[in-house]
């Protein structure tokens, strides 16, 4: 069908313009099953014009040639092309209903391509138009907001979830398939412009064929390929994205300089800094204000001098400095050109892509060039050979810094630091040691010991170069129409070299050399040779797989169709890492000098003692899989569809006993196209299909192995290798198993004004890897076993509606997803329930609770007299923070619910008028909570960990009515801070609605344009991350990003054209 559409499309393109004679063709278009007329169907002639059917399905069209082809199409129906001759009588053209436009297309499971209407499982297909709506350089990011996948941004690395969680300790990411095999390389290697479509496999009937790695769902990426007998086409895609600097003012972990200085004064008066100020051993960092206060105390400066200086500091805002000197707007450029075409026996697709990205951190850049070719041959009518090749070369530079870290025990810089003076000259800032100490510590023997962040960025030389080659080869031989055999192989090799070169001018190198310098009478001895330090990491990944597969299909007229496949697959992935450090390295002449690693050196000025780090590390892992799989689909009258699939996996990760057992993954599914039944006469709901499936899939935890008991390592104190017992042998170690029941319905209302699908599912994940506490006297206190269970249920709803279908067209797509997870069995329970209070980023496996449940200490408000936080201990208000933070039962904690939304989705409205199109995507997430970062006085004093809440702290009686932020007290009390930080007072509701993106596009040439050299061309503007429209929390925090700064606004201007 697809080919047909395409051919007719091509034919339409080459419209003739010569009129010879006028012939009239008359006909009627009717529905194949209901025999009712179809109004509004498009009738077009290959060599002529086009028209529409009237309300009674009749049409009349003038034609110029005797022999022509007539193309008939209508929304919600399959297309038809037929030959017409001069003698053609009145035509009755029957169109066959399809449920939705989407279902015309073919889905790819990685093992087979099949029309979606024949599926019994829950598939979600994202075609290239949807994929190209957004402009991210990373293909997976483009799925956000247009699919049922939930993207979690609250963790440093965004996480993807298809239908919630099905594991506790193993990988939570879906399996990613590129064409036919799991993709292990860097996802940035895949150029989005080269992608034809993506299929999500959500339930067991869809994914169980992927077996032991499919438990989290599967994302199948299908690359573009040529088609036989197709004209050559050249396509060009370009896009430029500009992203604003991140809004540092949205970060809560900051205090303005005045507040910070107030806190420092408070602590100084209490004597908190005395130890640091008198420390002559390791010379800890002391902030400039504390230095001033100390100088005032010693009478070195006057009160006025002190106040003037503090006044000056109070005006500085480090965030402005950061934005000015560390950040810039980021610019991403994407270019892709491709050529595709085909003859009788060969077709090809060749794509070339080039991306460059100037990252928002000054000093960070990345480049990528990508060549993708796919050539298919048919040397014999029943033999097809496929050859694919993807080469990627990428280079990333990471010299930027997102903030300045003072070092020592301080993780954040005081807010009145200055990176450059008024004239823009870079300045030294506090680093690792007290400022005054590094002025004179060297006594003329050492390298400059100052830290200048802006110079450091300029001197840094950190690059990662990546080469990736992926080769695909496939042979398919057809013995007959019904039987063919195919062998497919794929090999991918990634070679990555990371260079972290610390030039001798970098602080990193100077500091290390200085520390390891020793005074020997009147001279010095360098224990780290003078020169740069080079860390070089070689990472190699080789993954290969080969698959043999038999495909069989047969049919007997109308009444049944059978298609089956079976095969075997072998896969292996070798990952190898080598890390080497070289001291005294000179990048210009490639020389180095050795250092001695096993001597304990006294550091300069007795700052401490230590060993020189050898910095070498080697690792080698080899994961192997052998799998057998089969899939059978049986269709009766094309109305009743039954599918069965099975798969057996063995792996060198599993225990021996597991590999020996025949314990396959399987699925069974059925579908009933009710609307195809003769008795079905509904005109309200002309398209209706029911689906149901049940089956299993798995998940594994790489790095865990059923066999080994000891692990080798290197030691440089004694120069011999060592080993340690890591886990007892576990011959029963096996994959985690997830059983999914899915019930679905696909429907289309009259004239398809409303269509969509609804899938309800329940999942039971069993044998989940879980740490089980054992008697520590055995030598280990926790053992990872297949011990826990998890259940989830939810639904995925997709609705498409055509609200207005005139000159102005208005379409709406609604996605609504619901998911609820529950831990049904868990062994790992800490005695101290304080171990379960969290930010909700980690999984808290408590039986009977949501795995992402947010637990908090119960909050009883602030003490009106002191501003102390109060909790409940045995039902009474208490300030015993030690006991409050070590609860012994869950009753002492309150549970707010999940930190993951139970309802989320999107509403996308698309308006089109002539060549213009505007779409607006609004996202929403409901039913979840998050914990905001809160003020911790202990962290403030110790590591300068700030929080803007300081300004709202309790200061006098009565404040407790307006604030929950405790008073500042001395001595500092970490338990008190901890109690407040993880209490109910810092929990916020997460519900929010956001304007995800807006896209405006303009078709420069119409698809049927007469311009020969260009088929169609489009320019578009795409704006993303437009901010929250509504949020339940009053603190102005974007709940989807938790403690991180929300993704900044970005704007893309793009152009694409087909020639």
């Amino acid at each position, binding site marked *: 069908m697809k080919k047909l559409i395409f051919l007719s499309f091509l034919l339409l393109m080459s419209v003739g313009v010569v009129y010879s004679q006028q012939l009239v063709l008359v006909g009627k278009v009717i529905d194949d099953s209901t025999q009712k007329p179809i109004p509004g169907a498009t009738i077009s002639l290959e060599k002529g014009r086009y028209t529409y059917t009237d309300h009674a399905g009749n049409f009349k069209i003038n034609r110029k040639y005797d022999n022509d082809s007539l193309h008939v199409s209508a929304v919600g129906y399959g297309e038809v092309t037929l030959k017409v001759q001069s003698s053609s009588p009145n035509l009755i053209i029957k169109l066959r209903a399809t449920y939705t436009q989407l279902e015309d297309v073919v889905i790819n499971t990685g093992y087979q391509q099949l029309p979606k209407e024949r599926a019994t499982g829950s598939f979600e297909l994202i075609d290239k138009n949807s994929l190209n709506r957004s402009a991210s350089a990373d293909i997976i990011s483009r799925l956000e907001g247009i699919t049922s996948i939930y993207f979690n941004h609250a963790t440093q690395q965004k996480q993807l979830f298809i239908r919630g969680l099905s594991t506790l300790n193993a990988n939570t990411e879906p399996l990613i398939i590129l064409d036919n095999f799991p993709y292990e390389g860097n996802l940035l290697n895949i150029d989005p412009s080269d992608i034809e479509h993506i299929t999500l496999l959500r339930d067991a009937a869809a994914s169980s064929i992927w077996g032991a790695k499919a438990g989290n769902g599967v994302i199948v990426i299908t690359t573009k390929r040529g088609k036989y007998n197709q004209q050559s086409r050249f396509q060009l895609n370009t896009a430029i994205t500009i992203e604003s600097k991140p809004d540092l003012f949205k970060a809560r972990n900051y205090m303005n300089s005045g507040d910070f200085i107030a806190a420092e004064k408070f602590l100084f008066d209490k*004597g908190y800094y005395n130890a640091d100020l008198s420390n002559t*051993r390791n010379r800890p960092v002391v902030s400039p204000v504390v230095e001033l206060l100390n100088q005032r105390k010693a009478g070195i400066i006057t009160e006025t001098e002190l106040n003037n200086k503090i006044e000056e500091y109070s005006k500085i805002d480090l965030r402005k400095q950061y934005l000015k000197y560390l950040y810039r707007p980021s610019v991403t450029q994407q270019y892709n050109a491709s050529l595709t075409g085909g003859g009788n026996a060969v077709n090809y697709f060749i794509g070339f892509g080039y991306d460059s990205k100037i990252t928002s951190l000054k000093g960070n850049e990345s480049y990528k060039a990508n060549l993708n070719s796919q050539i298919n041959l048919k040397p014999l009518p029943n033999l097809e050979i496929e050859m694919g090749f993807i080469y990627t070369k990428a280079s990333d530079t990471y010299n930027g810094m997102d903030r300045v870290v003072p070092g020592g025990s301080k993780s954040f810089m005081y807010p009145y630091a200055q990176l450059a003076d008024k004239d823009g000259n870079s300045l030294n800032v506090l680093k690792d040691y007290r400022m005054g100490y590094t002025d004179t510590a060297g006594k003329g023997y050492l390298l400059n010991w100052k830290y200048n962040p802006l110079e450091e960025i300029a001197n840094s030389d950190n690059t990662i170069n990546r080469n990736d080659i992926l080769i695909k080869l496939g042979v398919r031989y057809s*013995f*007959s129409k019904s*039987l063919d*055999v195919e062998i497919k192989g794929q090999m991918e090799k990634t070679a990555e070299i990371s260079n972290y070169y610390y030039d001798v001018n970098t602080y990193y190198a100077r500091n290390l050399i200085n520390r390891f310098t020793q005074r020997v009478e009147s001279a010095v001895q360098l224990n780290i040779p003078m020169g740069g330090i080079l860390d070089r990491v070689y990472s190699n990944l080789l993954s290969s797989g080969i698959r*043999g597969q038999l495909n*069989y299909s*047969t049919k*007997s007229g109308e009444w*049944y169709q*059978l298609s089956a496949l079976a095969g*075997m697959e*072998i896969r*292996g992935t070798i990952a190898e890492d080598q890390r080497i450090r070289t001291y005294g390295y000179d990048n210009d002449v490639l020389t180095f000098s050795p250092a001695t690693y096993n001597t*304990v050196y*006294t*550091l300069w000025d*007795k700052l*401490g*003692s230590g060993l020189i780090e050898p910095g070498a590390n080697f690792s*080698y*892992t*080899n*994961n*192997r899989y*052998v799998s057998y799989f089969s899939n059978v689909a049986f269709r009766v009258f094309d109305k009743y569809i039954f599918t069965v699939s099975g798969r057996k996996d*063995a*792996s*060198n990760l599993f225990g021996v006993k597991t590999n020996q057992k025949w314990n396959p993954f399987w699925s069974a599914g059925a579908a009933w196209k009710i609307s195809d039944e003769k008795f079905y006469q509904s005109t309200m709901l002309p398209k209706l299909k029911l689906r149901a499936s049940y089956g299993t899939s798995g998940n594994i935890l790489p790095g865990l*192995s059923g*066999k*080994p*008991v*000891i*692990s*080798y*390592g290197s*030691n440089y*104190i*004694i120069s*011999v*290798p*060592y*080993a*340690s*017992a*890591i886990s*007892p042998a576990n011959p029963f170690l096996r994959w985690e198993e997830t059983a999914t029941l899915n019930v679905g319905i696909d429907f289309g209302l009259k004239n398809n004004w409303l269509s969509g699908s609804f899938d309800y599912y329940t999942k039971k994940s069993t044998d989940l890897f879980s740490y089980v506490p*054992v*008697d*520590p*006297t*055995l*030598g*280990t*206190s926790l053992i990872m076993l297949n011990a826990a269970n998890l259940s989830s249920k939810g639904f995925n709803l997709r609705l498409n509606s055509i609200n207005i279908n005139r000159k102005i067209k208005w379409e709406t797509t609604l996605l609504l997803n619901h998911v609820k997870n529950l831990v049904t069995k868990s062994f790992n329970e800490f005695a101290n329930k304080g171990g379960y209070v969290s930010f909700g980023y980690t999984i808290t496996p408590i039986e009977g609770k949501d795995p992402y449940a947010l637990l908090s200490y119960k909050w009883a408000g602030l003490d009106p007299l002191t501003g102390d936080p109060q909790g409940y201990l045995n039902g009474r208000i208490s300030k015993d923070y030690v006991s409050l933070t070590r609860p012994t039962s869950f009753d002492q904690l309150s549970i707010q619910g999940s930190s993951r939304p139970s309802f989320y989705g999107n509403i996308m409205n698309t308006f089109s008028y002539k060549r213009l199109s505007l779409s607006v995507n609004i996202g929403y997430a409901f039913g979840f909570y998050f914990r905001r970062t809160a003020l911790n006085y202990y962290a403030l004093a110790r590591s300068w960990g700030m929080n803007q809440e300081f300004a709202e702290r309790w200061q006098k009686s009565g404040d407790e009515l307006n604030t929950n932020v405790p008073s500042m007290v001395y*001595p*500092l009390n970490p*338990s008190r801070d901890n109690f407040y930080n993880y209490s109910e007072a810092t929990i916020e509701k997460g519900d929010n609605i956001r304007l995800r993106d807006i896209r405006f596009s303009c078709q420069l040439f119409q698809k049927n344009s007469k311009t020969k050299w260009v088929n169609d061309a489009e320019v578009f503007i795409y704006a993303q991350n437009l901010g929250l429209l509504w949020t339940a929390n009053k603190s102005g925090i974007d709940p989807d990003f938790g403690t991180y700064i929300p993704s900044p606004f970005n704007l893309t201007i793009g152009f694409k054209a087909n020639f």
Partner: protein
Amino acid sequence: MKKFLSDFTLHKYYQKVLPLLVLVLAAQLTSCKKFLDEKPDKNIIVATTLKDAQALLDNYNLFNSFYPSIGDQSDDNFFLNDETINALSLSYKNNYLWEKDAINEFEWNVLYEIILNATIAQETVEKIPKDRSDSILYNSIEGTAFFYRGYALFQVAQYYADIYDSVTAGGKLGIPLRKSSDGTIMSKRSTLAETWEHIANNFIKASRLLPLTSPIPSRPTKAAAWAALARTYLYMDKYQLAYKAADSALYLKSTLINFNTLDSTLANPFTRFNDEVIFPSTSMSATQLYSSVYSIDTTLYASYEKNDLRRVMYFELNDNKGYGFKANLDGDNYSGPFNGLAVDEILLIRAECLARMGAVDKAMDDLNTLLRSRWKAGYFIPFSASSPEDALNTILIERRKELILRGTRWFDLRRLGKDSKHAVELIRLANGIKYTLGPNSSRYTFLIPKQVIDITGMKQNTR
């Protein structure tokens, strides 16, 4: 359905092709086992060879640097100011103030991890047939395993079991001994007598199997086994046996570092694996054990004479205007306190045993041998004693002065508390509150981890 079947019968070439495919698949099936035998990670293997067993025992981080420092955290060699006490984490603070609910669970876990690793090494060796050509290596590995088991159990017994008294030990609870790596055997507490006997036996076996010297300084030798045995018997009050063991150890190794050759200006005057060390091991560091944080007991510091070089080699003024200890025998002040075996301690054990056995002169000879190496050359006047009691008193005072932050003071407080002549009551002051720890207090014994009690049901210590 008919057609479905006929497809197979009509086309002849299926009959040729299908068996071929089946054959190919079958061939792959048989090679699968081999394919799947590949190790998933090169660093990870099943222990089967002597090399594996040796590597297990060469785990320096576990066997040589991961012992408890609970005793050092709790003993009377140092004190903290209120500011420091208030800043301590709860577990350190509870140890310092001898609180009832002091929790030291991690230490138990690590000690038994040491025992498990040693046991696996021993079981690995025992499965390998003994070959004449490698019997030295074989014995050395087995001996090392015995040594480490005894060494770790000694620590467990000192922290998690009652103070040993030969009269009552048969009726008191000791510790689980874990003689096998089999995790299905339930742990249970042996009697205190069995515990100490088992510890001594491990060292006796080790002393027979271990080599005289080792090319790798972290591995135990025969001398280490004897030294550990001397230590064990000392805490069992078996002075004659302790004397014999100490004597055997000193026969093999008796080098003392002359402090006159050391440089007091160095951050640490010692180097790692120095000549005086018989077996190197350190304990876990703790906030209150960094020399800049605490102050050495002022009376203790004052007890070092002017010409006693330990005064300058051991101590330096710190930020609290008190004295910190800077002479970790491990050579690295950032390691936890040294708690290994060294010639000085063994010499002191021999001296003490001799004094207790009535051999005053020999006892004082040993003490003077040690002190001569500690004093400024030419200034040392040998100590003398008028009676065994006098000798014992002097030796015990010098023992305390020599072994600073060596993990022994807490154990000494435990054993000497039984003898009213040497028993002391410890006093701490914190935020104006006075804390005391009397001799033989149940606070000298720590709580067994709750997880152990919960799972095995064994009896908890009273504290």
